């Protein structure tokens, strides 16, 4: 039917190369997709939540919306926010806070990380630290809590080598200093209450009605924002008080 002469088929070695090229493309392209998907699987299987920066929207939406630019990291005065690595399991380049190493103590006053976020992964709906809900503090190990044992605390809260920073308003209103440079001498340890950046979020309450009983227990109140300052400053090892990321406050 057609008048156009058929083109002769390409020589065998050309055909073979084309076939091999196709297989290579399939294999290496598949490997790229596989590697990327391997990064997604842990997201699916993630049970525990990481502590996210202030204002982080729901975890699934947060992981979807984060563009992994680290602008939140750049504005944080205490460098509390770090970007996850592939060794962290999921969310390469997504920010989280390792509160025990360096908590958010709201040194910036104005939730700078939220203002810096270009995608709203940190919601722009809140503007005050009191409105933040990152999680909630919980007295994890009451038996080692110093106040619970009626003990005081003297010295550097986390030892001489601890690199974490905190802004002490009495020392410098603007500049956070190393916690190691600010030793304490307390008759009864109240570090979690003393250094909490949110008013009324935590208080020490007596364990018994006996006035001679020095023992107190830290009680977490509804205004707790889950910033992790108490977990960072807690002098026991491991910390007696921890943050449950993304948890909601419930009356005791």
């Amino acid at each position: 039917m057609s008048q156009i002469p058929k083109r002769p088929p390409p020589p065998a070695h050309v055909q073979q190369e084309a076939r091999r090229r196709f297989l290579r493309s399939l294999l290496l392209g598949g490997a790229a997709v596989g590697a990327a998907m391997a990064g997604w699987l842990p997201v699916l299987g993630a049970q525990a939540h990481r502590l996210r920066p202030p204002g982080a929207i729901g975890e699934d939406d947060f992981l979807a919306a984060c563009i992994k630019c680290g602008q939140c990291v750049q504005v944080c005065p205490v460098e509390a926010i770090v970007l996850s690595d592939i060794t962290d399991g999921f969310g390469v380049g997504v920010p989280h806070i390792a509160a025990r190493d360096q908590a958010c103590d709201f040194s910036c006053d104005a939730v700078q990380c939220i203002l810096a976020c270009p995608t709203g992964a940190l919601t722009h709906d809140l503007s005050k630290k009191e409105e933040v809900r990152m999680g909630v503090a919980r007295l994890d190990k009451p038996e080692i809590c110093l106040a619970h044992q009626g003990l005081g605390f003297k010295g550097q809260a986390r030892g001489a080598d601890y690199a974490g920073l905190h802004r002490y308003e009495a020392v410098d209103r603007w500049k956070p200093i190393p916690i190691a440079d600010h030793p304490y001498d307390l008759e009864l340890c109240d570090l979690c209450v003393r250094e909490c950046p949110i008013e009324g979020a935590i208080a020490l309450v007596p364990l018994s009605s006996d006035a001679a009983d020095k023992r107190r227990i830290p009680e977490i109140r509804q205004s707790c924002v889950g910033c992790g300052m108490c977990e960072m400053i807690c002098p026991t090892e491991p910390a007696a008080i921890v943050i449950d990321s993304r948890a909601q406050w419930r009356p005791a």
Partner: protein
Amino acid sequence: MSLIQSLAIMLGREPTKPRPEEYSPEAQALHEAKRASKLTPEQRAEINRQTHDAHKVHTWRNRRWLTLLVVNLLFVLSYHFDVQLIEGALTASRVIGFHFADLNSALQVTLAFKTILINLVIGTTTVLLLWWLLGGRSFCSWVCPYHLLAEWAEALHVKLAAKKLIKDHQLHRRTRVVLYVIFAVAALASGYTVFETISPTGILSRAMIYGPTWALTIVVFLLLLEVFYSRRMWCRYMCPIGITYAVVGAISPVRVVFRPVNCHHEGECRKVCLVPHVLDVTKKGFATQMHSGIGADCTRCGLCVDVCPTGSLKFEVKGLDKLL
């Protein structure tokens, strides 16, 4: 070459020799004259000498490397000295307070999050205009840090290949089109920016600014593949970011143009080019016009401009000569 053809070739179609009716009378006459003329051995030797010498010219490459390093250093220094000139990373940033967003990262986030974010709209519009003006894939060769490492890996690859220790294993150019679609669908379906896990551009940019990460092993792995197995594998056949910027640059005023008049058709330009299919026009008898722009996939890296001994390939800003 029409825009459609240019885009089709960028998306993986193999370029073909133009049909006879596509040639302008001038180009036709030029090709006939070239066919008729025979070179004397002296002329031949002179051309060989020129071609050889041209490989020593690195004007545009040096300008480009300098630009690439300065841009990336600005990100790093701006953070470390807290001067707030450029905040963020290549995926998204604020440049003196203005939102910038990488087109591919913004697309991934939008598909995963399924929300139109005003800051990303602002950021991508700015970036879109910027890269339309500057040539689209010029992002790849003038800004992307992976491109620079890949160029060094390529130099190694070419050296080893010349010694016959390795050989180049090509992939099909449609691979990256398939990957582009897969990663877009994956973001939409999983609600997670799947591609960012392996994006060497994002990984490198963040590692430079925020410190080294284990994610760099992905970059090292890619580079090793490119040195020993497949020349420029990632940028040439796989990276979806390249497609995004190629589409933007398809109609860019900044481009490389080819004028066949003085060309000896030695093909040195195609040997150094990341995307040699765009230089098909430089083959003997392939130019349909006396002056034609190079296709959408061109990264405006300038290697061909440097290597061309006859000045047949040049950068041009469309319409600028008319203005001046």
